[in-house]
């Protein structure tokens, strides 16, 4: 009998290796998937995939998807879905395009206005979900259609009949905010490195990689911020609580409604950010932007370990989930497989990556 039980030491606890403690964190599980996928492509893909420029190449779509995926993960942890993300990208792209091109506003006004508009739509989504008690799946599904349709109508209106609104690049050229939302960062550094020969060059002497695409920086920044919020702030605690059991959370004094509405707003703003980045990058926006992105965002979150039932998951997991997804979609082009098999591979790799995650985690943490 242990009469010493008031002490912290507990004879009923086995010592745990560092690896076990590490793998116990849901976010780190997803790393297993990244490693597996990397190994697969190291073997099968053309070696250009893992040159600096190749890496930038698959990280760019991963970053855009990841920004959405992290927001979706936070919302899922909070117990809700947003199926209107993809349409929101198209819709806010239109808003931004109209503000920048048709209204000729500078970015310092156009971007906050776009964000405000997105936040308002997100709040509306959230308000309807909270007010009616309908599942967010069906409410945001309605907005998936509504926003997609509104984008088409709006585009035709503002472009004079076409489904594409152009001229964004020239409209924002020279704006002091443009480099923050488009193009490549650290250009000088890369040019210098190229001169030193550290970075590959084209024949013309220009570095093959002109810099780090800004969306990658946004992606990393957002992942860090989201992780900080989720793990280190009271709001993070509220998000987990709201998603874990909204009744219990409400009863314990968590302002569940406010939390959920804020999360819907956040998701919408993430969509707006992606819209701004892609619209400036592409110089145009069209009615099909963001098509199916809502599902990819949810996939990303789920690969990263989020539970569909809410209350569990991580932003870092979604970060790696986006990288896995980006790597698999782009990577197959680098291989010699017949491209007809693309979807079979995509599905197979996804399944393998998540199963691998799971096996590794169970093995290491000793769960049954």
């Amino acid at each position: 009998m242990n009469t010493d039980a008031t002490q912290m030491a507990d004879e009923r606890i086995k010592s745990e290796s560092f690896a076990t403690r590490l793998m116990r964190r849901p976010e780190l599980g997803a790393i297993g998937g990244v490693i597996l996928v990397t190994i697969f492509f190291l073997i099968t893909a053309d070696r250009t995939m893992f040159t600096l420029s190749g890496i930038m190449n698959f990280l760019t779509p991963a970053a855009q998807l990841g920004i959405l995926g992290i927001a979706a993960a936070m919302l899922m942890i909070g117990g809700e879905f947003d199926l209107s993300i993809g349409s929101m990208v198209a819709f806010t792209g239109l808003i931004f395009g109209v503000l920048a091109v048709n209204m000729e506003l500078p970015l310092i006004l156009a971007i906050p206005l776009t964000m405000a508009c997105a936040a308002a739509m997100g709040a509306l989504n959230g308000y309807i979900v909270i007010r009616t008690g309908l599942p967010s799946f069906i409410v945001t599904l309605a907005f998936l259609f509504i926003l997609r349709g509104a984008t088409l109508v709006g585009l035709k209106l503002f472009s004079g009949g076409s489904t594409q609104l152009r001229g964004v690049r020239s409209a924002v050229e020279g704006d002091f905010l443009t480099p923050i939302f488009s193009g490549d960062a650290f250009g000088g550094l890369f040019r210098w490195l190229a001169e030193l020969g550290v970075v590959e060059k084209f024949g013309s002497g220009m570095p093959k990689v002109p810099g780090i695409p800004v969306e990658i920086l946004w992606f990393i920044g957002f992942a860090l911020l989201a992780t900080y919020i989720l793990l280190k702030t009271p709001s993070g605690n509220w998000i987990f609580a709201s998603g874990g059991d909204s009744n219990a959370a409400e009863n314990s004094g968590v302002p569940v409604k406010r939390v959920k509405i804020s999360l819907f707003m956040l998701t919408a703003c993430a969509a707006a950010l992606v819209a701004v980045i892609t619209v400036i990058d592409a110089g145009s926006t069209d009615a099909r932007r963001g098509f199916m992105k809502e599902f990819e965002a949810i996939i990303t979150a789920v690969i990263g370990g989020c539970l569909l039932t809410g209350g569990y998951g991580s932003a870092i997991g979604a970060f790696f989930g986006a990288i896995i997804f980006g790597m698999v979609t782009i990577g197959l082009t680098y291989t010699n497989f017949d491209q007809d098999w693309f979807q079979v591979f995509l599905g197979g790799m996804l399944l393998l990556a998540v199963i691998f995650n799971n096996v590794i985690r169970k093995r290491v943490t000793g769960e049954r």
Partner: protein
Amino acid sequence: MSDPIIHMENIKKHFGNVIALNGVTFDVRAGECHCLLGDNGAGKSTFIKTMSGVHKPTEGTISFEGRELSFDSPRDAMEAGIATVFQDLAMIPLMSVTRNFFMGREPTKGWGPFKRFDTEKANATTMEEMRKMGINLRAPDQAVGTLSGGERQTVAIARAVHFGAKVLILDEPTSALGVRQTSNVLATIDRVRNQGIGVVFISHNVRHALAVGDRFTVLNRGQTLGTAKKGEIDASELQDMMAGGQEMAQLEGSLGGTV
């Protein structure tokens, strides 16, 4: 005696076509422990849920410190100084003990945008409060879902006691507790009462009620059966009232007074 902190007047609560409460009047004063007793399904939990802002009463008025008001959410009630241990505990199984403990009222450090959840302090507080109740946690970041029934209940009680400002409501807090933990909880009730906090204590155990209660109100089928002061009533009378006046099972004799 002092004025009541909360006074609930003629509370009715209907769920669709179910009448759960049919006119209950109840109050709790500072520094007293008011026991709410009654048969299963009498409406005790429903009643304290209206008191702590979870349900809105279908009819009836709530006065808090003399002013009539209605709580829009449990958060309102909490901010007014009411802490509750719900029968279903209101815990999130997937979250750690510490996170559950401080859910909705997280301690922070830093300032402005760098204000963050003070994990060390929260962990230390949690372990300490749990130890006071007689539970030694293995680790504060263990998920509540993996705790035993009694450990889980203790977390809920420790939380409510820690934050209880003016009124502490306990809905069958000792149901899953071991003997040591139970005696700790009863001692705690005694302690906070002496600090001037009003306690509402729901129990099916006559002995526990008599040990700490100052007044006893019995509910039956959604209505008040009456209120008695300590000393005015003895265990077997109380027990009969709690059973709703119906007969005990045949074993009664052989188990004599053991329930």
